[in-house]
């Protein structure tokens, strides 16, 4: 109960700081702040179809965030999550392309999930391998692989997989409707994605809480050397954590292809990977809080689409709010730690 109170106090404090900061930004930009907040709210939760739109963003964010919980638990900064999502999209596109001519598209649709998870997993495994065997820091390895993934997707869209006639930034040719994920027609939301995202959260929570994988990741994250003396193999656990993170991110990439765009586009990942890093940090690495934060971020993203039309404010305001949130949280955290240290000294 006390931790809950402390946590909610911190949340309120953060919200107030971010609110003041954003209001200031809006005033400087010359836009009416409360109207902006109203439009963000209305644009994200104002109707069922808006909410469904928010959920389509929430799904990849939550999947990536679930995967990142494994890597953060072992103390790895899997910044390569963006590239892992892209590779998941590429792998599942490759598989779906085989399904175009086939008589059983459902089989290929099902297999594309595995392909997506494989693609992301392999890409993460590269980063993990470079880290454990090559001694390359995972941030550099991940960042480098992100660029490579971006290069590959552009090459495919403008090269081998280009539209008949002319290649364009709008992506590859749209798949036949038989290869689309089933969706609820009125609100254009795929229940498969929703189920997968919820399952990812459940599985992650259960893995981290009750299994050896969870305890091993935690032990190595806290003290790699001592964990080794206890008989754990840090290298293996690191690869495992990376594979989980990459797998979930790849699945998110697959859903973007099969459920939303129905083709491969250059911006298939929409920076959701990077955003999910913020989600996990903001949720204080808590598996139950992360989906909530992801939902809030999705609301901001969708809600701010309205802003340019209504108030002639750029929609990047959502990015400002998200960034400010994370910075404020980190600042408040640092402030609390310092206070605690002072208390301990006095």
């Amino acid at each position: 109960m006390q931790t809950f109170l402390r946590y909610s106090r911190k949340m309120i404090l953060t919200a107030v700081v971010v609110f003041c900061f954003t209001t200031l930004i809006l005033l400087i930009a010359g836009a009416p702040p409360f109207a902006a907040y109203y439009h963000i709210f209305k644009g994200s939760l104002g109707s069922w179809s808006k909410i469904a739109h928010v959920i389509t963003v929430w799904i990849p964010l939550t999947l990536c965030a679930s995967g990142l919980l494994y890597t953060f638990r072992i103390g790895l900064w899997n910044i390569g999550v963006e590239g892992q999502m892209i590779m998941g999209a590429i792998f599942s596109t490759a598989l779906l392309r085989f399904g175009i001519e086939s008589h059983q598209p459902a089989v290929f649709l099902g297999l594309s999930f595995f392909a997506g998870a494989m693609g992301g997993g392999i890409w993460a495994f590269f980063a993990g391998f470079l880290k454990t065997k090559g001694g390359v820091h995972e941030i550099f390895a991940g960042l480098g692989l992100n660029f490579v993934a971006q290069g590959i997707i552009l090459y495919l869209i403008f090269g081998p997989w280009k539209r008949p006639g002319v290649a364009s930034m709008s992506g590859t040719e749209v798949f036949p409707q038989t290869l689309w994920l089933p969706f609820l027609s009125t609100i254009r939301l795929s229940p498969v994605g929703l189920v997968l995202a919820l399952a990812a959260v459940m599985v992650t929570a259960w893995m981290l809480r009750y299994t050896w994988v969870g305890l091993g990741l935690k032990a190595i994250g806290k003290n790699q050397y001592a964990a080794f003396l206890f008989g754990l193999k840090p290298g293996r656990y690191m690869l495992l954590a990376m594979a989980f993170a990459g797998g979930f991110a790849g699945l998110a990439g697959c859903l973007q292809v099969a459920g939303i765009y129905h083709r491969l586009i250059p911006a298939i990942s929409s920076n959701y990977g990077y955003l999910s890093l913020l989600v996990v940090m903001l949720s204080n690495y808590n598996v139950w809080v992360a989906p909530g934060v992801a939902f809030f971020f999705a609301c901001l993203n969708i809600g701010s689409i309205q802003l340019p039309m209504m108030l002639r404010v750029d929609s990047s305001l959502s990015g400002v709010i998200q960034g400010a949130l994370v910075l404020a949280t980190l600042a408040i955290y640092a402030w609390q730690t310092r206070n605690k240290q002072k208390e301990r000294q006095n």
Partner: protein
Amino acid sequence: MRIELRNIHKYYGPVKANAGISLTIRSGTIHGILGENGAGKSTLMKILAGFSRKTRGTVSLNGSPMTYKTPAQASRLGIGMLYQEPLDFPVLSVLENFMVGLTGNISDRNTPHRQIFEQLAKDLGFNLPPNAIVKNLTIGERQQLEILRLLGLGIEVLILDEPTTGISSMQREALFKALEQLASEGKSIVLVSHKLEDIEALCDSVTVLRLGRVSGEMSKPFDTNTLLEMIFGILPVQPTCVETQPGKTVLVMDCVTATGGRAGLKKCDVTVRQGEIIGLAGLEGSGQGLFLRLASGLVQPKQGAVFLQKSKMNGKDYHAFKHAGVTFLPTARLEEGLIPGLNIAEHFALQNRKGFYVNSPEAFKQAKKSIEKFRIKGQPVFPVESLSGGNQQRLLLSFIPDDPVLLLLEKPTRGLDMESALWVWEHLQKFCAGKTSILFSSSDLEEILMMAHRVWVFFNGKIVKDTMISDTDIHELKSAIAGII
């Protein structure tokens, strides 16, 4: 400088670390502060050095009450403290470390820091190369550097917290000589220790603390029994070495060479038999730590062969050694031995991993049992970093499997008070009766002479002396440690 502490209180939440301590330190004297771990020595000294703030009480310097809140303010008043672990910058050179805090301006090239440093070092008889990188120095040398740096700041009161832990006997002698000289120049020295011999060898007067209060004071000449009574209340029983008949061969090293540490290990030929307790003596970093890591599979030999119970272990990793019955306990408890952030029960869960799920109730039960058996002050849900040093060591000992073949212990009683150290040894000796061999390193020769059957003296990466305890004495070992055979 004359220091008066009056009625000092220091509370950490409900814990009363200092409960009304008063004492006076005259200028030009060496004053000892004695007491067990947790008696409040370090707390009191940290208050005096401005590192932590007192809850109540007054500190007077030369008769006038002073308030200061940071170590920087304290050093401006002339008080400097040498902490138990060296607080320096390992990647900088000796001279650069010396200059830290001395230079106020951006460019300060005109002050001849090098001459000042060399003069101070010469005066005290310290031999420190100014250009050496600090991380390559021994603990003792780093201590000397810290003393010189504090003197460079112009301090009048020097506080030393357990300065003889982890340094060689030669360095100890050099340190004591320097301290005596500083005292004769009029500086006040405060020596915090739980080692009676240090206090008796050096101090003019001593204050004994017990459970946060002053339990007695004494001036030269000291009476050991009275001091012991002041420290412990009742006298502890001295342990004795258990006699066992050495059995079959357990560990053989055949001409093993390896790199690592300061000296590496060169052409090491040894045989360890069942039931033997062998003490590894030598200066810090002479190869003892590397030997223990070789014998536990953490380091691979460059040349030569390692045999464990007749099977060749070259190329096998730590986990294979562990599986074969080798247990290694490192000296840095929170850095290498335990996992801060995990609680006691989770540590037990990590011990026996089976299946897919963590068996939490079982681990909890096991933790509870061990806490009772090893008299650890804590609960299964306590994070390990909240335990005191002695309790952390007890916890580590409780992880040793029931019948290890070979126990490798790196300074098993480092930083423990006498009672905890005795308890540790009582526990360890039980293993020998069960045919376990124990190899332990220690910087305390008395401990080796008291506990071991055999002693190996390491010097510069070589075992220069291998003898039974009954065939040697402390003087012979001391000269062997210094490389004189």
